[in-house]
């Protein structure tokens, strides 16, 4: 038995013991997202011991890695073949595990154009409460056999079990990227983002903050140059542009270190500017609006709801629940899923949905 088999057996036994005792486990990779989600208790189950890339065939556009594999390891391997994870997973200043990336389901600046983490999940192996390894999805792009549990696990924050392995679709790196900069107020920026979104332009990221907007173009050099001529604005130099988008992805941008609470408000991109005095940073073509300051939870949630979306208390500020409440019908399905997958409630209790 090699060391990874042994590591997997160890994980299985930890889970089976916990299930036998009805004792809660707190699943964790590198801990870069400890701040994320609801408060959760339980004995720490560190998943970093089960790691390594299992399979990577560049011409298949698929990589398979064990949960504890460092994101940096995956990324540097992909880079050798001019490929990348197009959903730009945030690292939050650390080096997350690929299991944590998928369990959180968070995506970076490219999300509104390229898709979210879940859009790139092709398969996953779930370590169930009973210690069984369940394979869902696979390593091919088109696969509709069985319910899409691999994608259900993406963003599940570990409440259904531990993801031990994932297969992800990878993409070729864009051949060229350029970032444009322009001065504009929020309402005009939102109007521009939405108008450009309806035109065949290679826009891969946008951000607006404090009277300034940045737009990233990615793709074939000819398309990027044509779009640049069409959009105008000033060209940012490459190093500055890379630093900007990385600082947004990882939230090392100064906006994210303001004192007080930080709210992540998800609305349709075309929603009007939010009527709040909070400082704002707008990503994803207008679909993601970060609000910093001490707004009350009730106020933020009402604002988000009236704009057709939801508000997530990201970090800082007062206590209280992080996520928006689920509708009763949706909660009931969650409750039944949780009770069937994790009948004794051992996996990350309460981390995604209070009470589950």
């Amino acid at each position, binding site marked *: 038995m090699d060391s990874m088999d042994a590591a997997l057996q160890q994980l299985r036994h930890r889970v089976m013991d916990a299930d036998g005792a009805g004792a809660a486990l707190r699943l964790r990779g590198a801990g870069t997202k400890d701040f994320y989600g609801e408060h959760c208790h339980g004995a720490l189950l560190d998943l970093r011991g089960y790691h390594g890339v299992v399979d990577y065939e560049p011409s298949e556009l698929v990589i398979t890695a064990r949960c504890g594999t460092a994101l940096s390891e995956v990324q540097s391997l992909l880079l050798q073949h001019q490929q990348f994870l197009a959903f730009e997973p945030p690292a939050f200043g650390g080096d997350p595990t690929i299991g944590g990336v998928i369990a959180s389901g968070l995506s970076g600046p490219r999300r509104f154009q390229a898709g979210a983490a879940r859009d790139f999940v092709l398969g996953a192996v779930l370590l169930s409460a009973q210690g069984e390894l369940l394979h869902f999805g696979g390593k091919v792009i088109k696969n509709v056999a069985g*319910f*899409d549990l691999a994608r259900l696990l993406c963003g599940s924050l570990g409440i259904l079990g531990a993801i031990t392995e994932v297969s992800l679709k990878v993409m070729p790196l864009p051949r060229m990227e350029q970032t444009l900069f322009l001065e504009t107020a929020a309402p005009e920026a939102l109007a521009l983002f939405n108008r450009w979104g309806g035109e065949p332009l290679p826009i891969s990221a946008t951000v607006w903050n404090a009277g300034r907007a940045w737009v990233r173009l990615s793709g074939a050099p000819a398309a990027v140059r044509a779009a640049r001529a069409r959009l105008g604005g000033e060209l940012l130099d490459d190093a500055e542009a890379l630093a900007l988008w990385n600082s947004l992805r990882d939230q090392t941008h100064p906006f994210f270190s303001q004192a007080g609470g930080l709210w992540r408000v998800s609305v349709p991109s075309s929603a009007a500017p939010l009527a709040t005095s909070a400082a704002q940073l707008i990503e994803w073509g207008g679909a993601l609006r970060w609000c910093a300051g001490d707004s009350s939870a009730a106020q933020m949630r009402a604002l988000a709801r009236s704009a057709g*979306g939801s508000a997530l208390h990201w970090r800082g500020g007062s206590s209280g629940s992080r996520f928006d409440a689920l509708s009763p019908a949706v909660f009931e399905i969650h409750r039944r899923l949780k009770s069937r997958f994790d009948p004794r409630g051992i996996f990350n209790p309460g981390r995604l949905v209070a009470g589950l």
Partner: protein
Amino acid sequence: MSVPEFDVDESRWSDLQAAPAAERRPAVAAALRAVLPSDCVLSADEELRPYECDGLSVFRTPPMLVALPRTEAELRAVLRECNRLQVPVVARGAGTGLSGGAMPHAAGVLLSLARFNRILQIDPVARTARVQPGVRNLAVSEAAAAYGLYYAPDPSSQIACSIGGNVAENSGGVHCLKYGLTLHNVLGLRGCTIDGEPIELGGGALDTPGLDLLALSIGSEGLLLIVTEVLLKLLPRPQLAQVVMASFDDVGKAGEAVAAIIAAGIIPSGLEMMDRKATAAVEPFVKAGYDLGAAAILLAESDGTPEEVAEEVAAIERVLQAHGATAIAVSGSEAERLRFWSGRKNAFPAAGRISPDYYCMDGTIPRNRLGHMLKAIEQMEHKYGLACMNVFHAGDGNLHPLILFDANSVGAWERADRFGADILELCVQLGGTITGEHGVGVEKLNSMCVQFSPAERAAFFAVKRAFDPPGLLNPGKAIPTLARCAEYGRMHVRHGQLPHADLPRF
């Protein structure tokens, strides 16, 4: 096997399957007529016949009743009555599905969503379309065209198939290599659970709290909920599209060229392969100008700005030449582009033209095993004495071998069925899957036993029960019971060994 992992009461499942209950028809019809106008309930034998199968016509049975609600309120009432009377409900869109997913339940209500056929809103700013499930796929792009927008997933049946059916099957199409499947292009769903309660999943915002039930519902083959509204993502129509057509004297070389295009960092908007039998069948029919001397042809499409397309087409041509293409042609006009595609899009009808019947398979394999698969299919043609023409979504490894047979010839369907099962089993062995885009339905239930372990299938039932506790939505489809897999294992002894020796044998 140890203790069953999930609490699944299979006896209940089999009861639903077994109940003939034709005598229940008057009572159930009366209950539905109490909540629907009388022309929305069909109960006469001749009215039921058009609904007895979907696009996979070898599996057929008339339903007990057909309900055609017109509004969500009526649909909810139908579900409440069916739930109260414990009657199975099978949803049906346009009936173009190819896996028998909409085959009726003999003791159930066939719930037609044909009257949910309105496009409710096109929002050109947010780039979304809110539509009812009975809207045809192509109608969405037609309605969005005025804004320079379109709906990307384009299954071959897009002139007829409905959005609700696309959601149920997670349909793909020729362009999903670049633009994704239905899953990637649906932002939200509104639907009803079996108790008639409305439920909303996803929506116009990109984050949704809780588990991704939207992803779980797409491709769930009518087993989890009935969809009443779909919010679709619209994309700006590319300025230009061009197709490169290349001939190869060997299918293996064509397969290698496909991998080489991807490895070169190119994601064509479509990348399709047809073997010689397929081109020979379609060419007299559509006159697409295919090279009939070639062992295989590839069609690679590039779309985007004119500058981008010019760059990409040149790059594709270089790769194809380097990998032994014997001839290359590039579409010079939109008419020529459509002509190049016409053969591929008409492959199924062409099969119907050269053979009394055909059986379309839908497995997926890693791209680099295409050559291996084609050789294996050739051997199976000899083994079963049936011809097979091959069309592939080569870019994503999705195969559509079309097995040609004559249903009037004794034993021919059985041979075609076994031929198909062999192909699917090989797909699983090669690291792929038994269905890429057509769904499991009733057709591939046995093959599900090959791809998934008992514990994995139990997890699927757990999902089913979480959405549909009484098990009334499309029962008997998509997930085989333990008993069925045990039975299949018994019938299907290979190399002296039963597959899944860990299965309990009854």
